[in-house]
């Protein structure tokens, strides 16, 4: 079993195989022979064979190792790989020369070059001189090698500015790194984009909304008078100060935090208090809470000092990060449920913050990365010593009750659920007491049956279910109000559990097979010199957060810097933004990523500061224009010879339509539709139960405030590639399918936006002015002559009678407006 797992690792083994045998001279081998082995043979074996045939890789396919003198001569299942002096009898040569159709090595690759095969043959003829007398030490832990060798586990180092040929182009250190890479690949950067194109790009990237026509005129004027540099700097500063910045960038974090307002899976029970965490994230991004502090609050807010009740409340809400994940509320076994919650927390924390999942090591050591089962259960102990409050009541569709977390009373705090009259509270309490009595009788009856007596009273399964559901429901009701019936402020989140303890490693992840207890701690491969120790009476969440946000941590800063880069440029420096492990991609600009990460920490983990830096780089300012030669040499634009063209995210498409129709409501709504209306009714009945809203998109607020119900997203989010809310998602997909067109052409939502835009345009004096205004609003540019005439033709096509001044044809104008909202240009960025 173990062997097979390791075999898998070998396929991916990216760590340079460092096999070094004994350096001792071998008596019977000549110095020339040894030299030949060292220069010609060893490198070949290391490069092409050790992956599947060495102690280092942990794999011996066909029971064959090639990493010692003894092993290569003893051979594997087929016999000796090398028979000194006899190439014909040496399987190694047969395999590499592809002489046997069933044994072609290395597998699934081109045959080795003929010179290499000739060298091996010659070596065998020479008697296979081989100084590797000592067997390599087996089973060095994978993490130890990895933390030494793998790029992402070494601390980032800032680099000095690389030399560039074109010294005029760079405007910031970033540009030096980018240009030097371009020059290295014989590419050149693109010219600056037009100011109006840049303005649209900036607005969508920073606040997720199009620039207004006033923004545009003001900006173009500033460019004219003060030049592009200062106009851009002023614009960027203004956008960073706008509260819409947090709406857009908070949403980026919510993608990573797999934020949602329901449990998902079959039961799919709503989380009516999840929205508090959503608002918290938006506020943090607006306040530019340092990223290390932001993480600290989300992982251990409940353990941080506070100087006011409102700060305490904020810190408790922050821990919602650990509670909003998907949960299998159908689980039959509460123990299994609990283990799954912990697993989900480990996965979300590691994947979101260090872009790798330790959760893979639940049942076996990580297949590709240096995380062991011990690492997993060390983290599991931390979360097992934590109580998660998710606030779902027991009901016919929910077997697992989850307490809500009570917040301190703070003035002005929103509470969405209703208070109860005192009589109602008392009635519920007495009902509950009765049910508990009944439960007691049932338990007694059960005990009687088991001990062979006749129970005093008989109960059916229905009785048992009724008592279970009803008590659960009432407990749920009572948890939401004070003794006098007043609605309590509640949230999702975590606190330290009553029992603080290490957990046992579970063999194959099976809760029925506990093994040795593992002390709470952090993954070995990422251990730091100054990492905090976990006190016996603490869960270790605070220390986990401190470890993750340590200035020495190799991954945390790199990962967030890369995520921010991804959002500004459409692709990360590490393209696999959620995977910095060995199966992830390598950075396209490693020195740049490291330098940015080091500076990010030095600059107090300020996200706004980094966004500003990127937005004002020359790299960001490039045009997105296609250049054929550059495309042929770098089709994915990994080296940034231009700015990549991007489709807008679902939220920006919807918010953009609301903005140009002047219908947008920028106010934050009270809570969420889930908390206000849906409550704890089953999500699956949306569309069938009349008490539930059929349309999840019935508001004019920004899209971040739409309900995020797992597996039941509002149409616009579902169609335009919203982040799957059950997964940590640093990079969204972009699909382009006809059902998106149906939404843009036929949905009442888009038609209503077209009406708004048409109403706005009707105020202009002439059709020509209407068309011009429409283009400026929708695309931040004036129409070309050809587009203007085509649009005018469309407006007048039915009604124009000669000599008569054109009146507003409201029906055609409406159709034109919708057409513009549906154009590809509206939802794409240049």
């Amino acid at each position, binding site marked *: 079993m173990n062997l097979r797992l390791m075999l898998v690792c070998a396929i991916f083994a990216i760590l340079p195989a460092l096999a070094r045998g004994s350096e001792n001279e071998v008596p019977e081998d000549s110095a020339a022979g040894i030299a030949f082995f060292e220069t010609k043979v060893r490198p070949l074996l290391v490069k092409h064979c050790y992956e599947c045939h060495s102690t280092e890789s942990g794999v011996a396919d066909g029971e064959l190792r090639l990493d010692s003198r003894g092993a290569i001569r003893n051979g594997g299942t087929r016999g000796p790989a090398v028979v000194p002096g006899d190439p014909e009898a040496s399987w190694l040569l047969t395999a590499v020369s592809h002489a046997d159709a069933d044994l072609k090595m290395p597998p699934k690759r081109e045959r080795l070059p003929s010179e290499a095969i000739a060298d091996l043959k010659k070596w065998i003829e020479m008697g296979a001189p081989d100084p590797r007398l000592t067997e390599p030490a087996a089973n060095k832990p994978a993490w130890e090698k990895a933390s030494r060798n793998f790029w992402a586990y070494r601390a980032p180092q800032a680099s000095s500015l690389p030399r560039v040929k074109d010294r005029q182009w760079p405007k910031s250190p970033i540009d030096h790194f980018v240009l030097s890479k371009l020059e290295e690949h014989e590419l050149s950067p693109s010219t600056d984009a037009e100011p109006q194109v840049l303005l649209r790009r900036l607005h969508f990237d920073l606040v997720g909304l199009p620039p207004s026509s006033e923004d545009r005129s003001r900006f173009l004027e500033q460019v004219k008078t003060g030049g592009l540099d200062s106009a851009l700097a002023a614009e960027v500063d203004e956008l960073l100060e706008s509260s819409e910045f947090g709406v857009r960038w908070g949403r980026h974090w919510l993608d990573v935090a797999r934020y949602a307002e329901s449990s998902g899976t079959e039961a799919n029970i709503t989380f009516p208090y999840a929205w508090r965490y959503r608002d918290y994230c938006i506020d943090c991004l607006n306040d530019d809470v340092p990223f290390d502090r932001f993480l600290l609050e989300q992982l251990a807010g409940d353990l941080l000092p506070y100087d006011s009740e409102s700060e305490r409340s904020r810190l408790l809400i922050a821990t919602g990060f650990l509670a909003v994940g998907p949960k299998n509320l159908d689980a039959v076994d509460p123990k299994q449920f609990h283990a799954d919650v912990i697993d989900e927390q480990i996965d979300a924390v590691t994947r979101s913050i260090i872009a790798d999942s330790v959760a893979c090591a639940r049942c076996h050591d990580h297949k590709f990365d240096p995380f062991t089962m011990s690492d997993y259960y060390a983290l599991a102990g931390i979360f097992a010593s934590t109580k998660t409050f998710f606030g779902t009541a027991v009901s016919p569709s929910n077997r697992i009750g989850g307490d809500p977390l009570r917040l301190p009373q703070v003035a002005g705090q929103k509470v969405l659920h209703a208070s109860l009259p005192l009589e109602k509270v008392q009635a519920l309490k007495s009902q509950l007491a009765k049910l508990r009595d009944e439960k007691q009788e049932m338990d007694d009856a059960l005990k009687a049956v088991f001990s062979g007596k006749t129970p005093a009273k008989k109960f059916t399964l229905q009785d048992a279910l009724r008592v279970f559901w009803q008590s659960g429901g009432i407990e749920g009701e009572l948890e939401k109000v004070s003794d006098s019936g007043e609605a309590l402020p509640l949230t999702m989140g975590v606190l330290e559990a009553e029992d603080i303890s290490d957990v046992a490693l579970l063999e194959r992840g099976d809760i029925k097979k506990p093994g040795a207890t593992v002390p709470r701690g952090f993954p070995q491969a990422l251990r730091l010199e100054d990492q905090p120790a976990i006190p016996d009476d603490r869960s270790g969440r605070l220390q986990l957060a401190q470890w993750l946000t340590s200035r020495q941590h190799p991954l945390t800063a790199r990962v967030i810097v890369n995520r921010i880069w991804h959002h500004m440029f459409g692709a990360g420096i590490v393209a696999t933004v959620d995977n910095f492990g060995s199966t992830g991609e390598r950075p396209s600009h490693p020195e740049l990523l490291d330098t940015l990460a080091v500076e990010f920490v030095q600059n107090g983990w300020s996200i706004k500061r980094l966004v500003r830096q990127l937005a004002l780089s020359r790299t960001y300012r490039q045009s997105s224009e296609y250049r054929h030669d550059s495309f042929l040499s770098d089709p994915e634009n990994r080296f940034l010879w231009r700015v990549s063209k991007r489709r807008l995210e679902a939220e920006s498409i919807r918010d953009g339509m609301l903005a140009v129709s002047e219908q947008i409501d920028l106010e934050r709504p009270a809570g969420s539709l889930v908390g206000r209306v849906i409550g704890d009714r089953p999500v699956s*009945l949306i569309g069938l139960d009349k008490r539930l809203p059929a349309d999840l998109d019935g508001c004019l607020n920004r899209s971040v405030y739409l309900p995020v119900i797992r597996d039941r997203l509002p149409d616009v989010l579902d169609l335009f590639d919203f982040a799957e809310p059950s997964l940590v998602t640093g990079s969204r997909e972009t699909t382009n399918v006809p059902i998106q067109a149906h939404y843009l052409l036929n949905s009442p939502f888009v038609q209503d936006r077209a009406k708004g835009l048409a109403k706005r345009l009707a105020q202009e004096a002439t059709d020509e002015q209407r068309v011009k205004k429409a283009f400026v609003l929708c695309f931040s540019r004036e129409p070309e002559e050809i587009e203007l005439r085509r649009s005018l033709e469309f407006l007048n096509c039915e009604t124009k009678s000669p000599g008569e001044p054109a009146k507003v044809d409201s029906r055609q104008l409406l159709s034109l407006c919708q057409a513009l909202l549906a154009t590809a240009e509206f939802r794409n960025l240049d």
Partner: protein
Amino acid sequence: MLSTQKASVPGWLSRRQLLKSAASGFGYLAFTQMAHQAAARDAAAGSSLLAAQPTHFAPRAKRVIFLCMNGGPSHMDLFDYKPALNQDAANGKGNLLASPFRFAQHGDSGAWVSEAFPKIAEKVDDICFIKSMHTDIPNHSQAFIQMHTGSFQFARPSIGAWSLYGLGTENTNLPGFITINPPADNGGARNYGNSFLPAIFQGTKIGTNQIPGFYAAFLGIDQEPGPPLKNMENRLLSTAEQRKQLDLIRDLNVRKLERDAVHPEIEGAIESFELAFRMQDEVPSLLDLSAESAAMLKLYGVGAGLATDRFGRQCLLARRMAEAGVRFIEITSPVGWDHHFMLKDKLDESCRATDQPIAALLTDLKARGMLDDTLVVWAGEFGRTPDAQSGTGRDHNNKGYTIWMSGGGVKPGLSYGATDEHGYQAVENPVHIHDWHATVLHLLGLDHTRLTFNYAGRDFRLTDVYGQVVGGIVA
């Protein structure tokens, strides 16, 4: 080369030419006139890119229905009977797990099928089993992506997209590639994506929005909460008015594309809006299962609270789509197959949800004379180990597993290849994912070495530089 053939298809070239000439400075009149001419031509020939294409040789199958078993079904418990495994497990050899299911031989072909699939067992004479599959990585996302695209490392077009690119569609009023209920994880949209192929070849996802079985039974609801596709009707504009609106959208998109020179997203939008317009007539009736007789619904196991309801609907939809001319239809099993624990109960549950619908699909296709030219594929991303995991389940196994195909030019009643005595490794006639891809394309009349697309100066293919058609299973 098909890629050069493609370039000579009139619609394809004409739009390119149009864009080129428009970009070279024709005035407004030429612009709209040509755009309209192109549209008229497209409308006559169907969308240019989607138009049916000549194959490399005579096809055996015209369409594919891919029953995707997400999670890795256990071959030793379903189709790959291993008496030695049971015996050795009983003798306490190693950590082996005996199959908890009884096996029997079925049909004239005498194929072994476990008791978990009683209805599929009745169909074995129409089925060709490949019992020697293997793939590169025993990890869900990589294996799932490799099954769909051939490569788990790089973003590549999915097999559905390649098939559609190679063949075009039989019905230009519908997407040529539809995927029902695909998983959001394991690569998500990459598994039905177009990658560098034009966007029109991307799979269109249809969610089913069904309600959980226990609710349906509890409430007696057998309807879905909403149609799987919404917004098929325009409440404001007549069809003629909408066509005019669409012409304007297209002209503006074409002009944008002209300015951008190369911009696949815009090109895709132009194609997909035209397709969307044509779909409006056909889709609502296509998706309306109420048109099916009670007997047909019963055959597929559709009904409130039935374990088979969800997959039954999907299979029935798949047959309707196949009939309507959709080229590649993929449906993902709503129950998983990743049975690390409690294999006996959980595998049985998954089988019960899918057995009857799958058998019904084969029966129905055959009765309609469609099984001859429809290739039905049943496959997961890998199989499972003969070893026990946690005593009650099995781990992932990429070294040997079973898939099956039916109809569409495969030899019926055949079991091809074999794993070792325990079912761990394919030892006889091993078939790699690349070989299977090559074979599927072959059955569709396409030579996998000639079905290429030139992207950034290199000709790419589904099978990269690998793949051999498995001649032994072709009828």
